[in-house]
């Protein structure tokens, strides 16, 4: 642990939420409850007491705000992602102890799908600063500077030894005699509904089974779609969460009747993301839908046709749309389909017919996915690598190799 060098000289600290998230699933009552829990986490280990003050006119040691961009301190926020929050160390200055959260984050609590940023986890971290702790490099510390994901139930969460040591260095230990032990209020937080009314009732699928509906590389992250769910793989090769996120909660504006994303890709040039389902596609800027559904005819396919796979190939800047054993090519720069298509998919030597999807990895290799396997085309090549196909699980989805998809039939060997 690391200490900031400043500490509160009193043992009862007051706090107040001055502003609440503008657009969040968390209502003010939930936010206040989470803040109370996050402070209690520190209180039970140190004997510090935290009292909420509700009046706007009353001073509070720890003022909590949800703010955007530049907000009158030296730490402007930067929108979604990047910096999430900060807090000021103890002291005499009016801003000491104050804690600010970036209002442009998607604050969540108890999210089962790893979507958004867990407000409780971040609040515990920031209140550590507000009490005088700096960042720690200890592996289990809540004071590590990088967001580590949700930390579980607020009423069960306990600080790591490193955090307790740091805190107790500043404020001492709680009394240990049974009569003096502080009691922890049995707070029953009003658990927010983590499932919206239209949430899928189907059980969460097993990512290790493969057979995804669509796979796309979006700004270096690989998205794996399956039914109403998707997983995200970070460029580092780590899954954002082993639990999938819900498609309709992430892709804002996608009509609820769209149950399956059959193909997806990020468009070269403007970075728009195209999601395909049936004979239509939808264009997203970041996570927001732009305009209405568009027919696949716009991309040169016959009326009523659907696609199995879509990808943008960086080596010629063209977009490829695959259906069965055929593919079309679209020129994004000229905004028109290339003439002479469809062509036979066998021109991609060794590619499986009707792939689940195709995407270009961060290394430039092109990957065809089907079932539980992938076929790799080395950078710029239209011929599979000799070691293709390979099981997807170990490389892409943090799944074990030996028993990977036991029921999957033998993969088709690449055409010699």
């Amino acid at each position, binding site marked *: 642990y*690391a200490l*900031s*060098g400043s500490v509160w000289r009193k043992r009862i600290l007051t706090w107040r939420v001055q502003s609440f998230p503008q657009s969040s699933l968390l209502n003010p009552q939930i936010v206040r409850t989470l803040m109370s829990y996050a402070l209690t986490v520190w209180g039970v280990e140190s004997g510090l007491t935290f009292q909420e003050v509700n009046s706007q006119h009353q001073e509070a040691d720890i003022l909590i705000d949800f703010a955007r961009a530049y907000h009158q*301190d*030296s*730490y402007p*926020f930067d929108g979604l*992602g*990047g*910096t*999430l*929050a*900060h*807090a*000021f*160390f103890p002291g005499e200055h009016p*801003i000491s102890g104050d804690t600010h959260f970036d209002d442009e*984050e998607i604050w969540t609590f108890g999210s089962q799908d790893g979507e958004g*940023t867990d407000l409780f986890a*971040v609040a515990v*971290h*920031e209140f550590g*600063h507000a009490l005088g702790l*700096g*960042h720690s*490099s200890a*592996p289990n510390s809540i004071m*590590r*500077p*990088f*967001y580590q994901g949700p930390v579980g139930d607020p009423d069960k969460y306990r600080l790591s030894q490193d955090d307790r040591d740091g805190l107790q260095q500043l404020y001492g230990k709680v009394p240990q005699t049974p009569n003096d032990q502080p009691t922890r209020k049995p707070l029953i937080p009003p658990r927010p509904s983590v499932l919206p009314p239209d949430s899928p009732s189907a059980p969460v699928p097993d990512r290790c089974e493969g057979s995804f509906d669509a796979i796309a590389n979006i700004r270096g992250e690989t998205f794996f779609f399956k039914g109403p769910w998707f997983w995200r793989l*970070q*460029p*580092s090769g780590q899954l954002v969460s082993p639990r999938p996120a819900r498609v309709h909660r992430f892709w804002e504006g996608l009509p609820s009747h769209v149950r399956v994303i059959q193909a997806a890709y990020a468009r070269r040039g403007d970075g728009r993301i195209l999601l395909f389902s049936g004979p239509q596609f939808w264009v997203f800027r970041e996570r927001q839908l732009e305009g209405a559904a568009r027919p696949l005819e716009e991309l040169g396919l016959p009326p009523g046709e659907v696609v199995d796979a879509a990808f943008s190939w960086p080596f010629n800047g063209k977009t490829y749309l695959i259906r069965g054993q055929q593919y079309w090519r679209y020129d994004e720069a000229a905004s028109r389909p290339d003439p002479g298509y469809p062509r036979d998919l066998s021109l991609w030597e060794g590619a499986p017919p009707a792939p689940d999807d195709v995407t270009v990895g961060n290394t430039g290799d092109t990957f065809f996915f089907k079932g539980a396997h992938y076929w790799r085309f080395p950078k710029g090549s239209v011929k599979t690598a000799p070691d293709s196909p390979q099981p997807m699980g170990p490389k892409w989805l943090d799944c074990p190799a030996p028993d990977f998809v036991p029921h999957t039939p033998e993969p088709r060997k690449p055409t010699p």
Partner: protein
Amino acid sequence: ASEPSAQDVSLGVDWLRLYGYLPTPDPAQAQLQSPEKLRDAIKVMQRFAGLPETGRLDKRTIETMHKPRCSLPDVLGPAGLVRRRRR
């Protein structure tokens, strides 16, 4: 391992300064960062992030620099405290 691009190095140095691993340059001085100082700063950053301490701006290090995080500096020494004093 490939060398980081000039852009990555530039972003990396800015990031290391922002979070207190490197001192903020004094506008009154022309200052060159020695490779050793930079390597040491990267190693400390890698330790905080739980990465192998290579001292190089490798792929994982650059990716980690793009991860969501707290705005406060990690190193509260003379470098990190510059921002607090400014506040």
